[in-house]
């Protein structure tokens, strides 16, 4: 006789409907009253099929219906019997086709933001690792990177090139030349290529803006909110804030560049945590299409590090702003809080990540020297180097990096219901906090679970009250 117990899932509700988020598949199912009753009984412990049927028919449900529901719950792995399921450890499929290459076209910057992971106290590239290496990527290296991307993306129809820095626009000449070269080479290879860049906006001029708009280059602006917040840490080397310089340039960019949505990327620090005020300013006063927030990556001892109390405040404010997103979604309107849309995108797809992100898999970073890193945050770090454009990817190092980052290697995550979306979190964050890219980011666990739960409830409410809105998430972004 079969005895059943609860499988691994996170229950949530939204819009008056009960749902389950199944772990580790990432599937989301809505429950009917019968399945809800069965799960309620199993909460108290294991039950035999007969007991379940007897108890549930006593509530007025028909026995064949109960049996059918038990079967459905079992088949979807909502409940399990004593045998458990076979564990499968996935080997990383190698070589993994590239999708995105991030070119750090320069490691120089005209700002001196105090928290910068390239220049701040927790940087991975130090004076010794930078010694003797070029500060600006040459056109030759950038074009070699394009060839590398096209050659190492077999089977992919579309690939992506991102320009990053330092301050990307300090090497705009190379950016422009690379885009032209890449477009021609991609066309010859029968692939589609698109471009984006991240900038601090200080060097945006009319010709640059025109070029970016004409060439459909996606732009992300690093900005931390209104002047008093932005200027706390986003400063020039003399300490002067950058807001006054960038605000008119950002407005001009947003007015002229209409071919791609322009996003703002905010770094939250202990001094800058007023999420709603920042969002209002960037979305409503400056006119950004989307605003995304991320807590600063830093050692916990820095003055700008967000402690646990700060993270709780951030979660509260995220939750409030997410309610606005929900209200918009129910009216079929877009809202620009991209942390919600990004999470909903992943929940809708039902991701179940073996690794926290695509770094070292489909995404690689390239330093001005041509050295290859897992992502842009690790460029110019000798310990994380995965190869060079001239010699190719060092597969042994790459496999080692990926194996250490695999969810199977993070025992702390194995009992967490949020692991399908989190998978241990950012490698760079883990390196800065724990000195090991393969370490789970344990300081964020409560935050991640809290935030995922908020987003699940929003997802559930949208699914119950305006399901057609979910069609916005059908088109798969690169996850």
């Amino acid at each position, binding site marked *: 006789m079969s005895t059943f117990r609860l*499988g*691994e899932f996170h229950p949530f509700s939204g819009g008056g409907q009960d*749902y389950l988020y*199944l772990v*580790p*598949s*990432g*599937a*989301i*199912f*809505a*429950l*009917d009253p*019968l*399945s809800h009753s069965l799960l309620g009984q199993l909460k108290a412990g294991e039950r035999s099929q007969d007991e379940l049927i007897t108890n549930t028919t006593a509530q007025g449900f028909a026995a064949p*219906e109960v049996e*059918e*529901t038990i079967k*459905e*719950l079992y*088949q*979807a*792995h*909502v409940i399990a019997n004593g*045998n*458990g*399921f*076979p*564990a*499968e450890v*996935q080997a990383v499929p190698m070589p993994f086709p590239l999708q995105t290459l991030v070119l750090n076209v320069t490691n120089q910057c005209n700002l001196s933001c105090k928290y910068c992971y390239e220049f701040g106290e927790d940087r991975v590239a130090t004076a010794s690792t930078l010694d003797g290496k070029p500060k600006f990527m040459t056109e030759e290296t950038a074009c070699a990177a394009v060839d590398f991307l096209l050659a190492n993306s077999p089977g992919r129809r579309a690939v992506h090139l991102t320009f990053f820095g330092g301050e990307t626009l300090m090497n705009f000449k190379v950016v422009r030349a690379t885009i032209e070269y890449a477009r021609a080479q991609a066309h010859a290879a029968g692939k589609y290529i698109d471009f984006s860049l991240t900038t601090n906006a200080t060097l945006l001029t009319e010709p640059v803006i025109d070029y970016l708009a004409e060439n459909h280059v996606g732009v992300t602006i690093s900005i931390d909110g209104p002047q008093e917040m932005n200027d706390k840490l986003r400063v020039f080397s003399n300490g002067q804030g950058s807001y006054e310089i960038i605000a008119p340039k950002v407005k001009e960019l947003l007015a002229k560049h209409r071919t791609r949505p322009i996003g703002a990327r905010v770094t939250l620090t202990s001094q800058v945590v007023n999420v709603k005020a920042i969002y209002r300013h960037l979305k409503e006063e400056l006119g950004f299409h989307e605003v995304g927030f991320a807590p600063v990556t830093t050692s916990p001892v820095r003055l700008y590090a967000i402690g646990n109390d700060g993270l709780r405040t951030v979660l509260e404010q995220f939750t409030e702003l997410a309610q606005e997103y929900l209200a918009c979604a129910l009216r079929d309107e877009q809202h620009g809080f991209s942390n919600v849309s990004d999470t909903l995108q992943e*929940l*809708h*797809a*039902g*991701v*179940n990540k073996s690794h926290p992100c695509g770094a070292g898999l489909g995404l690689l970073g390239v330093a001005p020297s041509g050295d290859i890193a897992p992502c842009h945050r690790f460029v110019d770090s000798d310990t994380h180097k995965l190869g060079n454009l001239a010699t190719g990817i060092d597969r042994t190092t790459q496999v080692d990096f990926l194996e250490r980052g695999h969810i199977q290697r993070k025992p702390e995550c*194995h*009992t967490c219901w949020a692991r399908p979306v989190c998978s241990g979190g950012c490698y760079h964050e883990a390196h800065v906090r724990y000195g090991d890219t393969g370490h789970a980011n344990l300081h964020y666990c409560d935050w991640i679970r809290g935030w995922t739960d908020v987003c699940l409830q929003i*997802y*559930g409410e949208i*699914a119950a009250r305006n399901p057609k809105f979910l069609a916005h998430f*059908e088109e798969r972004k690169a996850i």
Partner: protein
Amino acid sequence: MKHLTAINRKAKRVEEYIAVNEEEDDVFALQQGPPQQRPHYPVGCSLVFSPGWEVDVTGGTAGLCQPVERDLYDCYISCYWPAQVPDHLNNYPDWTSKCANATKDWRKIDLVFP
């Protein structure tokens, strides 16, 4: 499926998979980890540093086995911890015969030289 409604794309894939494999008795629709290992409650001393558990069941230190006189009997009679107390069961059955009350008479207990 009638009682579960697939909401997201992964759930729809699970549903399709189940429909296709309906005939098989035990479908493994998804990859799932091994059965969860639950912690057991330890009885007796810990493996290496007996009796020095680092923390007690409440996470503090108040309930720890303290290495004081009264522990002599705990170690000697119930578990025999080599190097700390003599082997009561086989070689030194009379080691504590002059010691009626460990907290008072512990000075009467002598060293042993195996």
